[in-house]
């Protein structure tokens, strides 16, 4: 089975995010980027499928800032190919444009199963995987955890609903699945192995073709949410904070005598 995993890097949400002085974009000067965590799950699910059933895993990414290291890491984890899609992506790539650019390259690659992360921290105009499926004319299922082959030309995919309920679908190949979580925690690639891959493997480069659409909307204001002000912050040493918290819980009747 030919498995394609489109990946991207996004700001690390563990770090502080700042809005630039114009108030319409993130301040990128101190931004720490990392592989989208849902894409990590898509890569893991692809590698698990390959480990169990054979096939080939190709990761594909638009040529944006710091993408090389992300692609080398995917190779170090066990991906067979890494393809960088070149184009004018410096100004940022909305999901609709990313989907069209990715589709222009994936059309020329053998593909049975396309796994994407279900969403990304910055996909304000929609999820790339679904838009990619539409651009390629393929069926799609999102919020998937658990993919298994069902015969030669289909897969079984489980879509997660609220309350732990799941729907099981059989989906004809080729198709696009938006992965919420891989069956196992994403594997770790040791830095030494990533370094080794960087020295020995060259990333493939393919240009995007065609005109890229805009997002259809314009950001007029970007801001941190104002705190609703409900949280009373308990300050002090750990002992003082624990004391106050204890008193509060006692007042509210949560301390069982």
């Amino acid at each position, binding site marked *: 089975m030919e498995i394609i995993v489109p990946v991207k890097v996004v*700001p690390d*949400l*563990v770090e502080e995010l700042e809005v630039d002085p114009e108030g319409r974009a993130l301040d990128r000067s101190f931004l720490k980027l990392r592989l989208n965590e849902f894409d990590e799950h898509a890569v893991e699910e692809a590698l698990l499928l390959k480990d169990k059933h054979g096939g080939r895993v190709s990761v594909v990414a638009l040529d944006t800032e710091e993408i090389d290291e992300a692609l080398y890491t995917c190779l170090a984890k066990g991906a067979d190919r890494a393809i960088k899609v070149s184009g004018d992506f410096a100004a940022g790539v909305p999901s*609709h444009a990313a989907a069209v650019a990715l589709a222009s390259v994936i059309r020329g690659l053998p593909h049975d199963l396309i796994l994407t992360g279900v*969403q990304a*921290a*910055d*996909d*304000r*105009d*929609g*999820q790339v995987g*679904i838009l990619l*499926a*539409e651009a390629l004319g393929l*069926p*799609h*299922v*999102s*919020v998937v955890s658990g993919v298994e082959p069902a015969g030669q030309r289909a897969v*079984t995919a*489980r*879509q*997660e609903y*609220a*309350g*732990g*309920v799941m*729907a099981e*679908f*059989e*989906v004809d190949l080729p*198709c696009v699945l938006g992965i919420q979580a891989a069956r196992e925690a994403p594997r770790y690639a040791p830095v030494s192995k990533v370094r080794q891959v960087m020295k020995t493997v060259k990333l493939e480069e393919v240009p995007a073709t065609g005109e890229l659409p805009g*997002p*259809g*909307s*314009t*950001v*007029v*204001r970007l*801001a941190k*949410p104002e*705190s*609703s002000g*409900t*949280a*009373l*912050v308990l*300050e002090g040493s*750990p*002992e003082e*904070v*624990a004391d106050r918290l*204890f008193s*509060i*819980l006692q007042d*509210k009747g*949560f*301390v069982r*005598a």
Partner: protein
Amino acid sequence: MSQDIVVVVEHLDNGPADVTFEMLGRARELAKATGGRVVAVAVGNDLEGVAGALGAADTVVLCQHPSLASYTPEAHQRALAAVLRARTPRVTLVANTAMGMDLAAGLSGQLGWPLVAYCRDARLEDGRLRATSQIYGGKILAEAEVEAAHALLSILAGSFPAEAGRGTGSPAIEEVSPPVAGPARVRFKRLIRPEGGDVDIAREAVLVSVGRGIQSKDNLPLVEDLAAALGGALAASRPIVDQGWLPKTRQVGKSGMTVKPKLYVAVGISGAPEHLEGMRGAELIVAVNTDRNAPIFNVAHFGVMSDLFDVLPLLTEKLKAAK
């Protein structure tokens, strides 16, 4: 093109989901601004019960067929696309849920209408559509203006009051036939319900919930001890379950359980929108997180910004000593 506002009805197990009522309430405000109608569109089979709950709409469009009885992204999107093409509404609201995600982005791609995802707010000002998305894990709000004549907005559950959308009017019912389709490429097989056996966190009065901040599985006893001292149960945010540290039955949030305990202690949880959706109804929320910008503090009543590894053992000791 019409000035109508369409709400795509999400339903499972006979009734519309709460988010549908939230959208109907907001749709009414948008329709006031456009002078159009509120049109609820439901796709499925045997939809009489669902239609009966949609009294807040002016018109209810039902697309019913045995082949649509169970949701599939492909067939339901195709049916909705036909309705939207025919009606050309000004704004179409879709829930940002597991079902709605496929539909909203799928329809945007198929119809060529713009989509603004993860919306917490939507309004029309002087005929211009403004939508505010909650992105970057809930840490940033992006307000955008939509230029196109038609637009799709996917709405985060919990953004608007559901009460406003529980009207008791008698909307006109229109039946439409699903479009003719070739063989289905996505086939519904079955619904899988969660297995019992473990603790039902939705029934617990006290939950101590743990997130990424706990760093390692080896640190879980810290929160287990606190939960035990409070006589409560242990719950978790998504990453902890994805890591396999706790079973799926313990997950709070969008794809986990919705909980409304009397006390919810969030330990090392940043509070992504998907998590807040499942716990914001708790009576008392205490959040422990070293990141003072963590969105969890926007819903918490009491916030602790000290290191959880310092505070938790001290609090647990005090609770134990009080017994």
